[in-house]
C-alpha cells in the first residue's frame, strides 16, 4: 500500500516499480481526483467544464495506465494528460462558440455560469476569476501551484520549462491572484 512503496510515493507521489508493484488505479484516482479537478477549475474558470475535463483526464489515464513505464512518476504524467485535455476542451469550446456566432474573434474561456456562482464562496470565485484573466501559461502554473500544491520542480516536469522559469512566471501571476482575492 501507499506507505510501503518506495521513493517518491512516500512523499505523496506514485512510482510504479515493476508489474507486481503497480498501484491500483483506484488509489491513483482517490489521491489525484481533487487536485486534478482544482487544476482544471483554475485553468478553465468553470466548474462544469472542470468536471468534464477531469472525467476525460482519468478516462484517458485509465486506458494508458497499464502502459506507463515502470519507474515513471504518475503525478506529472497525469497532469500532462489533464493539460492536454484542457487544451482540447478549450479548442472545442472556441470552435463551438464561433460556429454558433456567440463570440467573435479569439475564443474565450467559459466564465463561471450563474448556477455555479452559488456553489462557491465569494473568495473562491474571485480566485477563479482572477486566474482566468492570466495568460494561459501563467494560469497553468497557478493551477499546478495552488490546485495541486506542486513544487517548482514538479511544475517543471509538467510544463517542460525549468523550475526557475516556472517560479518566476508564477510569482507575478500569484501576486495578481492575491490582489484579486484581497490577501
Amino acid at each position: 500500500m501507499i506507505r510501503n512503496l518506495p521513493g517518491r510515493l512516500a512523499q505523496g507521489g506514485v512510482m510504479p516499480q515493476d508489474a507486481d508493484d503497480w498501484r491500483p488505479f483506484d488509489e491513483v484516482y482517490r489521491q489525484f481526483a481533487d487536485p486534478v479537478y482544482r487544476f482544471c477549475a483554475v485553468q478553465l474558470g468553470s466548474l462544469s467544464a472542470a468536471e468534464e475535463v477531469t472525467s476525460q483526464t482519468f478516462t484517458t489515464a485509465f486506458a494508458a495506465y497499464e502502459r506507463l513505464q515502470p519507474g515513471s512518476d504518475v503525478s506529472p504524467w497525469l497532469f500532462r494528460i489533464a493539460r492536454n485535455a484542457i487544451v482540447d476542451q478549450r479548442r472545442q469550446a472556441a470552435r463551438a462558440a464561433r460556429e454558433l456566432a456567440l463570440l467573435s474573434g479569439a475564443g474565450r474561456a467559459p466564465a463561471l455560469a450563474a448556477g455555479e456562482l452559488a456553489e462557491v464562496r465569494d473568495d473562491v470565485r474571485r480566485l477563479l476569476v482572477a486566474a482566468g484573466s492570466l495568460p494561459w501559461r501563467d494560469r497553468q502554473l497557478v493551477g499546478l501551484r495552488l490546485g495541486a500544491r506542486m513544487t517548482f520542480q514538479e511544475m517543471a516536469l509538467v510544463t517542460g520549462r525549468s523550475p526557475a522559469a516556472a517560479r518566476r512566471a508564477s510569482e507575478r501571476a500569484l501576486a495578481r491572484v492575491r490582489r484579486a482575492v484581497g490577501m
Partner: protein
Amino acid sequence: VSVTEDLTGPATRVEELGPEERRLSDLLDELHAPVSASYYAHHRLGMATVLPDEAPEERGGRHGRAIAAVVALAAAVAIVAGYLTLRETPEAPAAAASAWHLVSSPSGETLAAVACPAAGDCWAVGSTLPGSGSTPSRVGIEHDDGSGWTVATGATPDGGVLDALTCVGAGDCWAVGEISGAGSSQPLIEQYAGQTWKRVTVPTVGPTGQGYFAGLGGVACVTADDCWAVGSNTGVAQQPLVLHYDGMAWSVVAGPAITGAAGGRLSGVACVGADDCWAVGAAGDAPLVERWAGSQWAVTLTPSLGGHVDTWLAGLTCLGPEDCWTAGHSGAGDTLQPFIGHYDGRAWTHVATPHIAAAGGAQLDAVACASADDCWAVGAYPGAGSLLPEIVPMSPGGSPAGGSAPASAAPASAAPASVPPVSAVARAATMPLIEHYAGGTWTVVRPPSGMPSAELIGVSCDAQGGCRAVGTITLARG
C-alpha cells in the same frame, strides 16, 4: 518538505508553498471532484465500461509511444535557420515551406538561450528537467562546433538553471540564471574563458532564506570587462535585480525601486555602448523599460508602449543606438497576444503584429536580428491539431483587419504528410510561434514540418543571416 498521509483517503501533501500561497491554495480545498466527474463513477456504475473509439490514447497510442521514444532521445531542440528566404505574407501565411528546420539535441535538456560567437561555434544553455522524486534540476550546456550539438563539460551544479547567454568572443562567454534549494534561490553566473564553463563568485543577494528568490534572466556585454546581468529579487516584494561585471568581479548595482504590490522584474538587457544599455521587463501589469546612460539605471517612460493590458517585455536586442526591439506579450487570459516594441532613437513604440486567434492566446519570449530588416521573434501558443494558429492580418492601426473573423491559416487537413501522426499533433499542448520582420512588417512564419509540441524560448542571429532558436519539446506521453 513535510508530508502527511491519510491511508483512509487521499494522501495530503504539505509542500513548499509560502504562507500566502498556502492561504490561496486552502481556498481551493472546498472544491472537490464531483462523483459524476469521475472515471471512478463511470466504471463502477457501468456507465462507460468501454472506452470510446475516438479516445485519443486508443486512437494513436502506438504512434504516440513511438514519438515519445524519439522525444526521449531529443527532448530539447535546436532549430537552425539556414538562408532565410521565406517571406510570407499575411494573406498566405502558410503557403510556403518553412525555412527553419529541426536539429536534434543530444540531451534531454530545456534550452533557454543560444549564442554563436563565431562561425561554427555556437553555445546553448538551459537546464535538465528534474528527475523523479527529489532529483533537482541541473545546468545544461551544449556546444556546436559546426558538426552538430554535443553536451559540453562544465559546472553543472544541482539545482542550477541557466536562462541567458552572451558571448563577447569565441573564448569569452557568460551565462546567467539561478541556483535553488530549500525553497529559495540565488543568482548563478558561469563563464567560458576558452576551456570549460566555470561557476564564478556572485554576491549573495538578500534577504535570504526560504521563500526568498533571486535570479537572473538576461545578460549582455559591452566589452570583455563591462557586462550587465538583470533579473529579479523576490523579498518582501519583487524588485529588479541588476549585476555588473567590471573585469574583476560581479557586483550588485542599485536601481530604481518599483512601487506597487506586484513589484517589478527585468527579463532582458542589451547594450550598444558603455553609456547606453537598455533593460526590459514588467512593473506590475505594465511594461518596464530601464536605461543605463553611464551613471545609473533609470526607468524610461514609455507612453507609446502603454494602453495594453498586462504587458510583459521578455526579450530585447539592439542593433544600434537607434534600433532596438523588444518582444513579449500583452493582454489577459485568452486575449493574450504577442507584443513587440521598437526604439528608434527617440521613443519606444508598439509595433503591430499579426493577431493570433489561438484559443488561449500566444506570446513571444525572445527576439534577435541578423540585420535591420531581418529580425525574428519566437515564443509559443497552446495548440492541438494545427501547425499554425489562426492568424488575422493587422491593420496599420493595430486592430484586426477585415473585421474580427479569423482566417484559418493551416487546418490540420492541409498539414504536410511529414508532420507527426495525429496522435502526436492532435494532442500537442504547445506549439512554437515564429514571427519574422522584413520590409517593415512582422509576419507569422510556419514552423518546420515535423515539429512536435514545443516551445521556443531563445533565439540568436549572426550577421550572415543564420539564426538559431532553442526551446523545449513539450509533447506529453499519454
